[in-house]
C-alpha cells in the first residue's frame, strides 16, 4: 500500500519521458519531430537530393529513363526512402491503425513539400503567379513573411481508397496526410477522385500487374457537392480565366511504380479539361520505394 502510494508520488515528480512512436522505447524526444526519440529521428532516411528529377527516387531510376514520354505528372517528390524501418512505421499507421503516427507522417510529408517548393522556385524564378495573396494574410511566428515569391500549389488531391478498404481501415491515409499539409500550408484540399474498383492490395503485385490494374481504377468524384465546390473554388480564385495552368499536388503515402499517381493525374487532367482549364500536376508521397 505504502509502496504504491510512493510510486504514484514518484511518478508525479519524475520528468516525463514519453514512449517513442517509432521504437516504442522510453527516451528523450527529438526537437524536430514530436513524439519521436533522438535515435530514431537521426535514422530517418530523408530524401534530400533526389537522384531522379522525375520521380524523386534517391537511387538511379530505370523506370523513368525507360520511356521518353513526359507522362501526366511533372514530377514526384517523397519525404523518405522506403526502408524496412519506414515500412514498419507505415504498417503501424496504415494496417495496425496507430493514428497517433498521423501528425508525424504529415510533418515528414511537409518537408518533401519544402523540397518541391524550393526546386520549383529555382526553375520559375520570380514569375510565378500568386493566388495566395488573395487569401487572408497568414500570420504566425513560423511563417516566413516576406517570402511571398515562393512557389505554392493551388490544390491538394488525396489518392482515394475503395469503400471496402475505407470500411475496414476506418480512414484514408492519403486524405489524412493531405489534411495535415493543407492545414500547415493553407492550401485547400478536395477529394476530386474516387476509386471505381477495388484493385486489391498493391503490395502483392508485380509491376506489370499493377500497371494493367490501374487503368480506369479512378474516376472523378460523382458527389455533386464536391464538384460544385471545385467549380466555385475555380471561379472565386479567378483561376479559370488565367492562362497559367493550375498547380495541383496529388498526395499519397507511397510511390512504388507511380501507376496509381499517373492514373489519378490522367483523371484530374480530364476533369480540369472539362471545366475549361489546364493543370500541372505533381505528386507528393511520404515514401519512395
Amino acid at each position, binding site marked *: 500500500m505504502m509502496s504504491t502510494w510512493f510510486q504514484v508520488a514518484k511518478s508525479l515528480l519524475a520528468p516525463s519521458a514519453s514512449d517513442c512512436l517509432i521504437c516504442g522505447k522510453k527516451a528523450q524526444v527529438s526537437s524536430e519531430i514530436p513524439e519521436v526519440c533522438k535515435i530514431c529521428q537521426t535514422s530517418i532516411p530523408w530524401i534530400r537530393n533526389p537522384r531522379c528529377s522525375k520521380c524523386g527516387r534517391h537511387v538511379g531510376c530505370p523506370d523513368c529513363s525507360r520511356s521518353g514520354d513526359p507522362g501526366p505528372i511533372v514530377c514526384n517528390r517523397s519525404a523518405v526512402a522506403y526502408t524496412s524501418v519506414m515500412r514498419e512505421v507505415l504498417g503501424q499507421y496504415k494496417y*495496425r491503425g496507430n*493514428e*497517433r503516427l498521423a501528425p508525424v507522417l504529415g510533418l515528414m510529408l511537409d518537408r518533401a513539400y519544402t523540397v518541391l517548393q524550393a526546386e520549383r522556385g529555382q526553375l520559375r524564378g520570380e514569375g510565378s503567379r500568386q493566388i495566395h495573396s488573395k487569401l487572408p494574410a497568414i500570420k504566425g511566428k513560423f511563417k516566413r513573411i516576406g517570402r511571398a515569391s515562393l512557389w505554392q500549389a493551388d490544390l491538394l488531391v488525396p489518392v482515394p481508397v475503395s469503400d471496402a478498404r*475505407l*470500411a*475496414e*481501415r*476506418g*480512414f*484514408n491515409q492519403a486524405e489524412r496526410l493531405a489534411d495535415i499539409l493543407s492545414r500547415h500550408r493553407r492550401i485547400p484540399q478536395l477529394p476530386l477522385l474516387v476509386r471505381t474498383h477495388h484493385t486489391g492490395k498493391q503490395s502483392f503485385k508485380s509491376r506489370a500487374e499493377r500497371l494493367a490494374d490501374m487503368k480506369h481504377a479512378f474516376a472523378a468524384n460523382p458527389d455533386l457537392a464536391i464538384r460544385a465546390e471545385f467549380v466555385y473554388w475555380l471561379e472565386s480564385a479567378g483561376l479559370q480565366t488565367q492562362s497559367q495552368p493550375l498547380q495541383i499536388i496529388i498526395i499519397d503515402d507511397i510511390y512504388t511504380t507511380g501507376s496509381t499517381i499517373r492514373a489519378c493525374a490522367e483523371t484530374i487532367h480530364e476533369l480540369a479539361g472539362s471545366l475549361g482549364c489546364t493543370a500541372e500536376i505533381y505528386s507528393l508521397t511520404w515514401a519512395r520505394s
Partner: protein
Amino acid sequence: MQAAVYAVELEGDWSLWVSLHMNVDRIWWSGTRGERDGWNNRAADKLVLLSSALPLGWAVKLREHWDSSRAARQWQEEDWGRYMAEVLRTEIDVERRGGGSLNVGGLYTEVDENYRSAIGCEKGICADVLGAAAEQLMQVLDGRSLLQPEVEALLEEQLPGLAGQWRAAVQLCHLQGRLSVEAAVGAAPVLRSTGAWHTARATSARLLGAGRFPAVTGRLLRTAALRLPQLRLLRRGAGARRAEERCLRCGSAPTGRTACAACGLVGCAYCEACLALGRSRACALLLRSAASPAVRCTAGASPTVAARRWGLSAAQAGAAGAALGFLAEPRQRSAARSPERFLLWAVTGAGKTEITFPLLAAVLAAGGRALVATPRRDVVLELAPRLAKAFPAETLAVLYGGSADRWTHGQLTLATTHQLLRFYQSFDLVIIDELDAYPYHNDPMLAYAAEHACKPGGSFIYLSATPPTDLQRLARAGKLPHARVPVRFHGHPLPVPRHVGMSSVHVCLKRGALPGNLLQALRRSFARKAQIFLFVSRIAHIEGLLVLLRQDFPGAAIEGTSSRDPARAEKVEAFRSRAISLLVTTTILERGVTVPRSDVFILDADSSLFDEASLVQMAGRAGRSKEDPAGTVLFFSPQWTKSQRGAVAQIRTMNTIARRQGYISKGAGL
C-alpha cells in the same frame, strides 16, 4: 461497422437485438422454420426495427441497456425514439460537440413497425444451407474471441466456402445464443474484483443464460433461454457518463479517438494497447463463443504412476502430485466466476516442463483443452518439439506472432501470452510459464487475456522460479495453493552466490583497467574450462569491457551481445557449443539459456536494474548439468544491497528446504 437494431415481442416479453443481417432475423422471428434444425419455431408477435444502420457501439449500447420490464407494448414511434435518445444521450452529445455529420434525427424517423414480415426476405438465403453453415462456423469459432478481420482470415483458411456469407451464419449463431455479438470497445459492466485479479468481465447476461444450455451437447438452444429475465440496472445521469469504456478484447481503457469512416462517427474510440493484433474500436465487431463447462480431472491418477511414465525425480513427482490433487479437487464455488489458481514454485533448473506433462495428460484424458503459455517466443519454439514428442496423439497448435498454426484448433495449445487475446473461455487448464518475466509481468492486459482464455470453472497453474512478491505472500499466508520444487533435477543444491567488493564498471572503464580480484576469478574459471556468463547492467558498457577483457585474455574467445545485437542468436549458439568461452551480456540472457559447465559473474550487482528475481535467475544459469552441478556465482559490486541479500537468502532457503525434505542426493551436500 454499422449494424441494425430492433426490438421483438415474444409472448409479452420484449427483447432488443443487434443484427448483422436483418433477413436472417426476419426468418428467425417468423417462426416458420420450426421443422428445420437450427431455427426457431416460435413466431414473434411484433418486430420493431429501430434502425437499419447504427454505429455498432451504439446498437450494442441500446441492447445492453434494455430492460425487459419496460411497458413497450403500448409504445409508439415517438416512444422508441425517446428511448434511443435517452440511452445514447452522452454519445449524441459528444458527437454534436465534435461536429459530427451523422444524422441523429434519423434515429427517430427510422422506427419501422413490422409484423411477421418474413415474406420476400428469403431471397438469397437458403435456411437449410445456412443452418449447416452455422454449425460449421461454431466449430471453428469455439472458444474464440475475434475481431472481424480475424474472423475473415480464419474463415478464408478453415471454411473458404463460407467466406462470402459469414454475416448471415454469424447472425444465426447469435440468434441461437451460441455466439455473442459485441462492440470491441464499450462500457464495461461494474467490475467485481476478486483478490488480486483485475477482472473486467463483460459477458452479456444473454450469453450467461445461454451457457446453461451447453452447445457441447450438440442440441440447440431453444427460445426459452432467450426469455430468461434480464436483470440490469439502468444507470442514469452522472453514473451513466462515468460508466467506463473498455476494450473488451484486452481490458484496457481505450486511449484513442478518431473520425471513423466505418461507422461515420467523428469520435470512434479505439484501443492503443492491443493494436499489434489489429485495431479494436467502438464500432469493430467482436465475436465470442459461449463457453462449454470445464471438465473435471479424475482423482485416480496416481502421482507415482505419473512419475514413472514421465521419468520425474522425487521432488518433481511430489509437486506434480500436489498439482494433480488440485486439478481433481471439486471446486468450492460450483458457479465459480473465475478460475482457481495454483502456484508451482520450482527453482531454476528443476525441470518445470516435465512436471507439467502429467498435468496436461490428466486434462487431455478427461477430454479437456489445455494451454501452455509463456511470455517469450523463443521458449515457445523450444517447447514445441518437446510437447509434440510427449503428446504425439494430440493436435498441437503452436501460436506466436506470424506462426502458421494461427487458426488451428488444438486440443493442446502452446502460445505466447499475447496470443491469448484471441481466446475466450476456451481452456480447462491454463499453465503460464515464467509469469514473472517480461512482458507478462506487470501487464494487466496479458493477465486479462490469460484469465479470459480460461473457462470459468477451469484451472490456472503458474510456473516460476521467482514468483512476484504478491503471489509469494499469498502462498505463505495459505491463500494460494502451491507446491515447491526446492531442488534441481540432478539432486544437487543450488550454487550460492558470493559477494566480491569491486568498484563500478563505469569507474573501471574510465580507469582503463579491470581490478585484480575480477581477473583472478576469471582466470580460475578459464582454468577449469568453464563457460562464463558476464552480466552487466548497461548495454553501453559491453563494448568497453570487451576491449579490456581481450587485452587481459588474448587467447580466449570473448564476445558480447545485447537486445540491440542482430547476431544475438548466433552468438548464444556459439556460446552453447563452446566456440565462445566468455559472453558479456545483459539481462536478456537471464532466463531460458542452459549452458553446461558454466560460471556466472554479475558486475554492478547493486544496480537498481537487477532486482532480486533477476539476480536469482542469473545465478540460476550456473551448475545446471549433472556433470558440473556446482558452478561459481559471484556478485561484484561496491555495495551489498537488499536485492543481493534477498537473492542469496532465497537460494539458501530453497537449499535448506531441499535438504530437510531429503531431496539432496547423497554426497552432494555443501
